[in-house]
């Protein structure tokens, strides 16, 4: 089968945009991607989004966004997998291109979170969890992650402070990223003294609530990709080599092991195998750190760190500049931001630009192989993509 290539990417800055609608944010990201690909227009649009039904009271999002971006008539639809909607959209778009059904697909994500009352937004995001057996008791999304974090701390004997090193580094990386929602450095003291949301999770352990949109353009066939690259004056081709998706239970209590995100284990294994590489070859990764604990579990369950050791290795400086892999130079969900349904697409756009060598933030060391990792729910659904530089 023909290979799939990424030929353009567009992102909006993430933040609180009272003057911008979801349709306007999405159109900006889409047209940036089209310009980035030398004017190449898509034959279909797949959009990741979680909360439009609840917070915008808007379904039929695909056609709405297509129409308002000037693409009335194209096949367009929304893909929903909670905070993993973006990754699931990449999975879907990859399948459309790989199968030969559509030659050029715009895979995007958009989310508008900042306009609701806080308790309404908290509830909308919590709908990633099991309504009948978790939310009914008053559980929140942060609360569920807090249950996992405490269990991890007690099982592997970590102190609260050990978790502060994740947000510390994410904020530093984000300070270089023009698209980041929180582009400023912070201190251990501010992290450890931030308010408790759901004990032991503090405000600085959690990704912020923000609006944003991102789009990547996927095409089928090396010839087509090469033509676009030469027209846009680039000598680097980036293949989207594989995308895998896997699931686990929605409720966390019924899992075999509370501290293993089985969907991540499965998706990472599948993506790596389909890309015909070994995990050790991965130079760069963007992983899903909705909370500090999620970032550490991601490193372990993808296979970058042994179980129980990620916080220790991270504190020692692993996964930084010059290491293999280098991780989350965007600033991660923690500080780049987490416009939920768009996050998985931001990760692919950022990794694509890191391989191309023109990511406008903290730069990776000329990566050839990158991995992106996007989760919906508390480890419930995971999409993993492998990107490769092609000579």
């Amino acid at each position, binding site marked *: 089968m023909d290979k799939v290539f990424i030929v353009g990417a567009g992102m909006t800055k993430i933040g609180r945009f009272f003057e911008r609608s979801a349709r306007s944010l999405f159109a900006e990201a889409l047209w940036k991607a089209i310009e980035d690909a030398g004017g190449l227009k898509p034959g279909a649009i797949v959009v990741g989004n979680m909360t439009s039904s609840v917070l915008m009271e808007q379904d039929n999002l695909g056609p709405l966004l297509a129409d308002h971006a000037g693409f009335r008539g194209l096949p367009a639809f929304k893909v929903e997998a909670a905070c993993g909607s973006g990754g699931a959209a990449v999975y879907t778009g990859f399948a459309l291109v790989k199968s030969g059904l559509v030659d050029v697909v715009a895979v995007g994500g958009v989310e508008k979170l900042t306009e609701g009352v806080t308790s309404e937004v908290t509830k909308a995001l919590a709908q990633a969890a099991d309504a*009948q057996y978790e939310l009914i008791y*008053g559980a*929140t999304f942060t609360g569920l992650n807090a249950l996992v974090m405490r*269990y991890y701390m*007690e099982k592997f004997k970590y102190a609260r402070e050990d978790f502060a090193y994740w947000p510390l580094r994410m904020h530093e990386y984000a300070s270089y990223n023009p698209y980041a929602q929180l582009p400023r450095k912070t201190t251990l003291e501010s992290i450890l003294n931030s308010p408790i949301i*759901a004990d032991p999770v503090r405000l600085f352990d959690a990704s912020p609530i923000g609006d944003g949109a991102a789009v990547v353009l996927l095409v089928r066939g090396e010839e087509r990709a090469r033509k676009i690259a030469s027209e846009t004056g680039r000598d680097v081709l980036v293949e989207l080599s594989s995308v895998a998706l896997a699931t686990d239970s929605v409720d966390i209590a019924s899992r075999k092991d509370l501290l293993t995100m089985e969907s991540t284990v499965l998706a990472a294994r599948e993506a790596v195998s389909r890309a015909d590489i070994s995990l050790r070859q991965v130079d760069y990764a963007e992983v899903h750190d909705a909370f500090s604990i999620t970032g550490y579990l991601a490193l372990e369950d993808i296979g970058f760190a042994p179980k129980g050791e990620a916080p220790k290795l991270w504190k020692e400086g692993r996964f930084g500049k010059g290491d293999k892999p280098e991780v989350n130079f965007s600033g991660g969900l923690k500080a780049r931001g987490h416009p939920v349904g768009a996050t998985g697409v931001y990760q692919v756009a950022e990794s694509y630009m890191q391989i191309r060598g023109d990511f406008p933030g903290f730069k990776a060391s000329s990566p050839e192989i990158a991995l992106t990792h996007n989760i919906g729910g508390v480890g419930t659904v995971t999409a993993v993509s492998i990107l490769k530089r092609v000579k």
Partner: protein
Amino acid sequence: MRFSVPRYWRERHSYYRLKAAKCLDCGRVTYPYTERCRFCGSSRVVEVELVNEKARLLTYTVIYSAGEGFEDKKPVVIGIVETEESKARLLARITDVDVEELKTGILLEPVLRRINEDGESGLIYYLIAYRPVLKTG
């Protein structure tokens, strides 16, 4: 929550008797009851009720930033408990305890509590919660 009456009513055995599924093939007990084992997919499952079992607190959280409908219930204490005999795990409200006294590993017992209500005229959610077993003697 704004559940419809049927949606709440049809779960009554899960909510009030803690009806779970015991798999005759892999031996696991999972809550709530499902016709197929959620671990191995087997249809050879039998019903068990967890409501008579005490349980241990595996992990807990104290939620200070509550979701819609729970704003006046803060802080909300949630835990994952493991029942003593069946070793089934479930998420539940932890009640009748001071936040400072919470500790993993403590023994708990099920008790009926009013958890929430949908406004002035909506459903009232009575559910099983867990409280610490008092030491006697």
